[in-house]
């Protein structure tokens, strides 16, 4: 049991939790010193306010789960943002056409939502089909072109304009997705609750079931996995489809967040945020490793850092992006450097002992 405990303690997730705690303490400290210096009127960085303003950073959390699954297989999907935008566009178009056709608003919203998720799933399936059918092309190239294609279709549907449903009570139901719910005295945004539910399902599925083990096998060595009876093509197709589905879930929450106004150029670059969060969470583009727990922690870590830098250090929005870039590179560089130092240390130690 001790060996297993040691593995958990030294694992990547533990390190993320420690960093998370340190960052919170540092920000609290900064908040207190600003209040002492009279720089800010009220306690800015407390649990309630942080959780509440975590919402914008939780929008792409569903897409991050999808991207994590793809990374676990050793592939990549840069069209997630575009398929989310296309799903949002379909949500608006379907709702509008059904309303014009006189369908009762409640039903048309439900059908529009189904249509939206179906579109995302379809986009994922298209990626999956192309990846398994055209093995000579790499997922990076395939999703590069499908990104332009999906974004193009979204523009075709919506033109440059915004589709909005001014004071339409039923469509405004989507806005409630962005509200908060008070549990145990703290108001927790719905988006976080739904995300944690999704994360739990995917944790169990990826880490505890046979299917999850097969995904990691595929990511480690797809030929050996194939010869061990793993249905590699079926899994690749399913993962890309699920990633498309999760992207459309992100789209639904995005529409809710932006007060149900839908644009073709929304969610640009969301897949890059998702890749950054998944990589910080322990996944890697070479496949075979990573854990959902790590991804959940890294999403909250990114959220806290972005909020803290914005409110406590006066970082402009683009400066926050810079810190994301720095953290992304350091999160892979430092373990490598540490590993090299250890290796060098061990060699020096052994050479010293052998010459004596």
């Amino acid at each position: 049991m001790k060996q297993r405990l040691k593995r958990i303690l030294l694992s990547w997730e533990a390190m993320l939790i420690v960093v998370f705690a340190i960052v919170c303490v540092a920000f609290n400290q900064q908040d207190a010193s600003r209040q002492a210096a009279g720089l800010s009127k009220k306690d800015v960085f407390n649990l309630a306010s942080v959780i509440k303003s975590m919402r914008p950073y939780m929008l792409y959390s569903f897409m991050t789960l999808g991207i994590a699954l793809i990374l676990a297989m050793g592939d990549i999907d840069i069209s997630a943002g575009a398929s989310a935008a296309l799903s949002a566009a379909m949500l608006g178009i379907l709702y509008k056409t059904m309303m014009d056709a006189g369908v009762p608003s409640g039903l048309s919203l439900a059908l529009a939502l189904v249509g939206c998720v179906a579109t995302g799933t379809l986009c994922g399936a298209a990626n999956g089909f192309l990846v398994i059918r055209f093995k000579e092309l790499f997922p990076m190239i395939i999703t590069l072109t499908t990104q332009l294609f999906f974004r193009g279709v979204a523009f075709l549907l919506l033109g440059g304009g915004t589709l909005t449903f001014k004071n339409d009570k039923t469509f405004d139901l989507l806005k409630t997705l962005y509200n908060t719910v008070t549990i145990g005295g703290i108001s927790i945004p719905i988006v976080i609750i739904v995300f944690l539910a999704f994360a739990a399902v995917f944790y169990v599925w990826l880490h505890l079931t046979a299917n999850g083990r097969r995904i990691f096998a595929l990511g480690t060595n797809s030929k050996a996995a194939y010869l061990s009876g793993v249905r590699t093509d079926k899994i690749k197709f399913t993962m890309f489809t699920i990633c498309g589905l999760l992207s459309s879930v992100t789209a639904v929450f995005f529409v809710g967040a932006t007060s149900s106004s839908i644009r073709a150029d929304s969610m640009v670059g969301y897949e890059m945020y998702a890749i950054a969060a998944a990589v910080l969470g322990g996944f890697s583009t070479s496949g075979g490793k990573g854990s959902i727990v790590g991804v959940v922690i890294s999403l909250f870590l990114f959220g806290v850092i972005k909020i803290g830098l914005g409110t406590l250090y006066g970082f402009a929005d683009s400066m926050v992006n810079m810190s994301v870039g720095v953290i992304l590179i350091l999160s892979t560089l430092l373990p490598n450097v540490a590993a090299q130092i250890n290796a060098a240390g061990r060699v020096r130690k052994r050479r010293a002992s052998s010459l004596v």
Partner: protein
Amino acid sequence: MSDKLLSMNRITKIFPGVKALSDVRFDLNKGEIHALVGENGAGKSTFIKVLAGVHQPDSGEILLDGAQIIMKDPTTAQKHGIAAIHQHAASYPDLSVAENIFIGHEFMIGPFVNWRKTNSEAKKLLDSIGADIQPQDIVGSLSVARQQLVEIVKALSQNARILIMDEPTAALSKQESEELYAIAKNLRNRGVAIILISHRFEDIFDLADRATVLRDGGYVGTWSIDEIDTNKLVAAMVGRDIGHFFPKKQTQPGDELLRIENLSRTGFFRDVSLSVRAGEIVALTGLVGAGRTEVAETVFGAEQASAGQIYIEGKPVQIHSPNEAMSLGVGLLPEDRQLQGLLMNWSIERNITLPTLKQCARGAFVSSAKEYAMADNLKTRLNIKANDVKTNAEALSGGNQQKVVVAKQLAVQPKILILDEPTKGVDVGSKAAIYEIMSNLAAQGMGILMVSSEMPEVINMADRIYVMREGRISAHFSAKGITQNQILEAAVPLAKAARNTAEREVAS
């Protein structure tokens, strides 16, 4: 004998946790082929890497023409005329032949490469050893044998005085091996000293003048080739008398498990028909490129046939994927253990249970207790030498890795087991263990289809032998009283078989 070119004495090299080389002596004369022989892990490749400057020895000295030199890196070794040819020869598959030969020292006009001169010089060198290869061809598109010729020419272009050939014939057919022997002898007569590392006794006895044996990193002895024979060599390598080398139990063949009729796959093989009965070991042999591995892949569903029918226990079946093959009771041991057989950085346990995760599940979840039980029982059954099932596959020796792949297939309780080159690159000791496993499985009523090009193995282990030539079954023998030449005759392409000259009895 010509004068002493190279002598290396008291060479010691220590890696974390293991003493790879201790006090190894080796000397080489000009114009001599000296075989370096030993089990896997005996330290042969480490020793060669020390000579080639890839590793630095912890102690000992290297004398070239009597003068001591420090081989600090491959480029210094190259400058001293030492060149190495590895088993998977092509170093730059995407580049042209000429470029592979002259990489690093092309013919220049000022700062620019003079392609015309480089190509013509390459053509001259290629013709000098009779290799009919165009300088502009992309190396990747050449056959393994011809890639090896390119490597030899590359060594010559650096006017190498010492040529290290590491397992040169492992991937070559009989025909191509003979061509390589001729070229090696030609180089020897031109004064080039060759260090030959090979598991194939035919190479050693056909080529080498002297043989040095290493065991567990230590120096055993050096003999000239005529004062030693196979059994003495094997005994020196293994250090103990291995008794009967091929433990084949006699079994009564049961009913038919596998039958394939006129199986074809465009471009690889056509009208292949064979059958395997319970308790039988059937060998499928032939030259490299005859299509044997492709037949195995097609039966296992990794590739799709273009015509023909497969019957399992008499019933016609369509196998579209390895997954379906396994559910029908067919298992495959792939040819390349590390790339296709195992997940190297996974534990033994997880490797073994990968194909049969459903059986280790309690409800939807994988139960680690069930998983441990299955892996541990197979570990003991095949006595895989590792302290526990949690160790990673990459930490195991070649033989033990092969046993893990066998264990992985046995977990599926196959009725038919296809083994593709089961003992390739495995040391002598483990070979015997694998043969024992094979004969036990046959004795328990399993049908074994062994794809192999090692004649001793084919002759001594198989009950029936199918020989393939250029994609077709060319002969079907029962193993009793079969000789190597009968097999070779069926295996060698027709045009050349007619003029097959010297009848050579190869010690077997």
